[in-house]
């Protein structure tokens, strides 16, 4: 399933934040998006995931336009995002955070809850098993019953990733998965992303930590002042004069 972004334009007041941005993210790829502060990365993510309405342009998932859908509908279609500042459900445990993300739960309807208790119990058991497996895979099992607000920054990033996995998505948009994470856990998160990518899930990743991202993604695009100024293999992109000028200030 491919993700296509075609000619997206977005203004904030008189400011053009995204200027005719197009990206083609192939099925199951590991795609990095870098750019300096204020380049429009998060706005682009918001437009792709439906949290911001773009002025013009299209978002296509597997050829089908999804740019008129609500964020909820896009998530259900298989395109799930995480957030730069983690949005954990702080008073719920890690396990409950994951269970809450499971789709199509009978127990989330009041009628189902009171009139189909057996079915609700059976589904809960399935959901709990799935959550346990994801926690295992993300090494979150030891904090399963802790309130999510008590997790470290890196654990919260993993939790968001885990919640996204509960939807069995085909594409995950990761917004700065390494921001505020200690170096040891950065490698850990990168490993988990690689593992998941190997199972066929596509990733589009925004990141500030250039080094970590270039080691993780075989393909990079660079956004600067709302425009894509380069894309390709990391080495080639980082060698590009325009990129060095815009993003790296010529120091790298």
């Amino acid at each position, binding site marked *: 399933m491919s993700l296509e972004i075609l000619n997206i334009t977005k203004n904030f007041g008189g400011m053009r934040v995204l200027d005719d941005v197009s990206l083609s993210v192939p099925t199951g790829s590991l795609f990095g998006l870098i750019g300096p502060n204020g380049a429009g990365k998060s706005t682009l993510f918001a437009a792709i995931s439906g*949290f911001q309405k773009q002025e013009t342009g299209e978002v296509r998932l597997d050829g089908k336009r999804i740019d008129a859908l609500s964020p909820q509908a896009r*998530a259900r279609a298989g395109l799930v*995002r995480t957030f730069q500042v983690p949005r954990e*459900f702080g*008073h719920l445990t890690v396990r409950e955070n994951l269970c*809450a993300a499971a789709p199509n739960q009978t127990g989330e309807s009041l009628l189902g809850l009171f009139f189909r208790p057996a079915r609700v119990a059976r589904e809960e058991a399935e959901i709990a098993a799935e959550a346990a497996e994801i926690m295992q895979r993300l090494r979150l099992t030891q904090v399963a019953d802790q309130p999510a607000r008590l997790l470290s920054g890196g654990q919260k990033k993993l939790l*968001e990733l885990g919640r996204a996995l509960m939807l069995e998505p085909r594409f995950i948009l990761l917004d700065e998965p390494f921001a505020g994470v200690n170096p040891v856990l950065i490698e850990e998160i990168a490993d988990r992303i690689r593992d998941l990518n190997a199972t066929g899930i596509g990733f589009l990743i925004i990141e500030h930590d250039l080094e970590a991202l270039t080691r993780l993604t075989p393909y990079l695009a660079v956004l600067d002042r709302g425009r894509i100024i380069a894309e390709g293999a990391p080495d080639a992109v980082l060698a590009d004069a325009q990129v060095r000028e815009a993003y790296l200030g010529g120091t790298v």
Partner: protein
Amino acid sequence: MSAYLVAITILTLIYVLLALGLTLQFGLTGLINFGHVGFFAIGAYTSALLTLNGWPVAVGILAAAMAAMLPALPIGYISLRLRDDYFAIVTLAFSEVVRIVVTNARDWTAGTQGLPGIARLYASLSGAASEWAVLGTILAVTLLAVWMITRIARSPFGRLIQAIRDNEVAVKALGKDPAWFKIQVLAVGAALAGIAGAFYAHYITYIVPDQFVPLVTFYAWMAITLGGASRISGAVVGSAILMVLLEGSRFLHDFLPMISDSAMASVRIGVVGLLLIVCIIWRPQGLMGERGER
């Protein structure tokens, strides 16, 4: 004295029904409903008018629940696009609109004259026996409501509304629609308030618009704040404490004879407010809440 205690217990249970709705709406979902008394008033007037026109009390109480649920739909729909604080103002305005409508729809509600002679529950029984029967009935309904809200709180539905309280945007990102959950939560709380209103009307047997001022809403808020907003036991314990404070402060007059009766009403509210402040400083999570909860 026992008649007095029965009466106080009945009023306390009516407040428990009101407070349980707020526990669900605010404690679990994070919705700030400052118009709870509006649903209470709709319930009271619906059941009073139906029974005054010859319908049985049981039908009146059921209709009260349904009628109170109706406005939850448009109000919930509005809440899709409003931030917490604006939602609070809209609900407060809603309850004032209800009060002003019942004040002015004189053909139906007799306006400020009020509706006297509302049928009592178990009117055929003798005085004391009927009081106890009323108490038993309201207690049974309250226990049923406690069971229902507990069941909801511990279910996948309860998990999701708490997720909405903690982070609504993340709920959307996970493909779920917070709006529909909020509407259902509003409707359930409204139904409980409607039933509470019906019991109130049939117990006091006389209702006027002045009984449905925003202060009633804030008494219910005080109850959940004292008891612990995110705990179901908090609604019960908080309502009991509130009633002890409100009733207990009646006896202040014995200690402060120099204050006139009319001034005493204000002093009582002041005392309750002071105790509320002390409680919030000393135990912000409420009596039944755990540390770190809100």
